[in-house]
């Protein structure tokens, strides 16, 4: 785009002579990335501790609490995040990037800390789920406003030719936030008993309390930063938008780019992002029945090895353009999701594990439970085994005892807490790594891509909405649509993958046909 001329030097050159020294840009990236990482951490811990949170705040058998729980899980991600993008995007284009993403950080940190302080349902009754819902909605709102601000702020400091690389640091934060959340929860959980962790004021609250320390540090760092030079210049010249929402969505020239950003990039990115990180973890735990510790460490290794690729693909996008890297990530997901997830299933197939002779590592424990409204009882026999190559599992055999005839009807055996052998473990790590590399391909360059699509005066608003609809709505629906498909077509355990494959395919076609691969040299207009 065009340069503002001043004494023979462009505005772009002037700005970067003054503010883009390597030390300056490092501070800009650090201040933005740390805050965004903390916001993702705050958002994730709620989801990861959902089971404990629901026991504490949303008890079963209470219809109102169940409704509030549903709203806390679904409304926070689907409605409030895009709404936060509009509210804070508008604010960021009116008053500036720095103060807006400072506000979102304080809002997020405060809400997270306060969730950790809300007494349980047993102590304050229905007020507990109401307060948690309110705070969760505030979290969603803050997250909706944060990302656009951080990406815009870094991009508006970055010199030409390095925008993809510099903004890719922001792109690492979502995955690193997940990594930190997984790590901290695991650390707390492994250092206390299950009872101590799940108690009303137990260990599950620590990750929420830790947030306030992290946010405090981040706010301090961000307060010392200057406003984006491009926004400051626009403001000094009186050229900021008077109504960013109207300009973004009611002016056809801009609105058509918002639609293109959503359908040609953001929605495909959302499903690839979600499938590689969350669907994979849930699949390993619930479909493959791998135990807590192994399934978490597989994810942690995969994330740790793949995270540098965010930076690599951000850097590469500065050399070869953003479009084809993002689309290649989608295409790889489309082509390999089913074989990869099928391998997870085959390697943990209960039938083949049971067919092998195992050594009992724990004597069988037999429990009898009465069946409601019947004279029959269920007999549960639990026993643990290990196999020759190091695999371990707990088998639960469920038989029915007919009291009228004193006849034991043999039932099925299900395996839980599976531990795969070392060789398979590292193969799983490799495959999860691959899934997250796809994430880095679609996600690494997308901040620079979105920033370059829109003009400075409405950039925050225009890029935030498609990003959060793509990531939050399309991505967030992966488990729900997966469940819907699995229920409708129960014969195929991989049927849930057709949703991310379908959305990524649609996005791939739209992106390939309509997007340009040209890198915008200047974003200072």
């Amino acid at each position, binding site marked *: 785009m*065009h340069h503002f001329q001043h004494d023979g030097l462009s505005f772009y050159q002037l700005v970067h002579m003054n503010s883009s020294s390597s030390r300056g840009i490092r501070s800009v990236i650090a201040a933005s990335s740390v805050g965004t990482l903390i916001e993702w951490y705050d958002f994730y811990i709620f989801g990861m501790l959902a089971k404990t949170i629901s026991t504490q705040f949303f008890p079963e058998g209470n219809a109102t609490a169940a409704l509030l729980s549903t709203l806390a899980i679904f409304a926070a991600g689907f409605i409030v995040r895009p709404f936060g993008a509009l509210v804070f995007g508008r604010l960021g284009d009116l008053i500036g990037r720095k103060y807006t993403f400072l506000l979102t950080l304080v809002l997020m940190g405060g809400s997270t800390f306060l969730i950790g302080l809300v007494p349980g349902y047993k102590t304050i009754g229905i007020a507990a789920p109401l307060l948690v819902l309110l705070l969760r909605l505030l979290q969603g709102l803050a997250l909706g406003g944060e990302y656009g601000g951080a990406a815009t702020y870094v991009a508006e400091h970055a010199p030409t030719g390095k925008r993809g690389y510099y903004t890719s640091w922001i792109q690492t934060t979502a995955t690193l936030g997940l990594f930190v959340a997984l790590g901290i929860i695991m650390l707390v959980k492994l250092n206390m008993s299950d009872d101590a962790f799940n108690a009303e004021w137990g260990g599950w609250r620590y990750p929420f309390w830790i947030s306030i320390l992290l946010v405090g540090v981040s706010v301090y760092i961000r307060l010392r930063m200057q406003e984006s030079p491009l926004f400051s210049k626009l403001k000094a010249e009186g050229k900021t938008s008077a109504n960013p929402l109207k300009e973004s969505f009611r002016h056809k*020239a801009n609105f058509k780019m918002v639609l293109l950003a*959503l359908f040609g990039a953001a929605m495909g990115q959302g499903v690839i992002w979600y499938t590689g990180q969350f669907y994979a973890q849930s699949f390993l735990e619930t479909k493959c029945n791998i135990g807590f510790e192994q399934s978490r460490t597989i994810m942690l290794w995969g994330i740790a090895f793949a995270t540098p690729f965010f930076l690599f693909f951000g850097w590469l996008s500065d050399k070869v353009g953003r479009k084809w890297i993002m689309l290649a990530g989608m295409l790889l997901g489309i082509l390999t999701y089913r074989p990869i997830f099928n391998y997870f299933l085959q390697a943990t197939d209960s039938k083949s594990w049971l067919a092998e002779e195992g050594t009992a590592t724990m004597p069988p424990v037999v429990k009898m439970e009465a069946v409601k409204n019947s004279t029959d009882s269920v007999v549960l026999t639990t026993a643990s085994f290990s196999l020759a190559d190091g695999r371990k599992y707990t088998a639960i055999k469920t038989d029915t005892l007919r009291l009228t005839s004193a006849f034991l009807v043999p039932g099925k055996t299900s395996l839980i807490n599976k531990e795969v052998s070392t060789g398979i473990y590292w193969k799983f790590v490799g495959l999860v790594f691959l899934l997250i590399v796809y994430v880095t391909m679609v996600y690494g360059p997308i901040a620079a891509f979105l920033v370059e699509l829109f*003009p400075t005066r409405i950039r925050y608003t225009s890029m935030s909405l498609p990003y959060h609809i793509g990531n939050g*709505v399309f991505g967030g629906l992966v488990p*729900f649509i997966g469940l*819907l498909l699995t229920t409708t077509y129960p014969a195929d355990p991989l049927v849930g993958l057709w949703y991310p494959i379908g959305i990524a395919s649609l996005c791939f076609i739209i992106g390939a*046909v*309509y997007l340009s691969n040209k890198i915008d040299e200047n974003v200072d207009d």
Partner: protein
Amino acid sequence: MKNIKKILGVCWLLLAPAIIYMLVHGAVTHIDPTGNKDINNPVIWIIIILIFTPVAIGLMIFGVYALKGEYNKLPGKSEDFE
């Protein structure tokens, strides 16, 4: 390429109402107050239909723009947005 963009525009235009139909059909089929799965929960379906209807309408508008050739040349600088 311009013709492909326009022809595909018709696809996007038709895909949007199909998505809305599928969602409403899915809701009618699966909502069950006695069920305990997420897909039986009417509140979740209401949220999803509420959020996806405007997105599907957006896809229709995208199709109309594509059909009119609005994406034949993408804006390169601020003036193009005026």
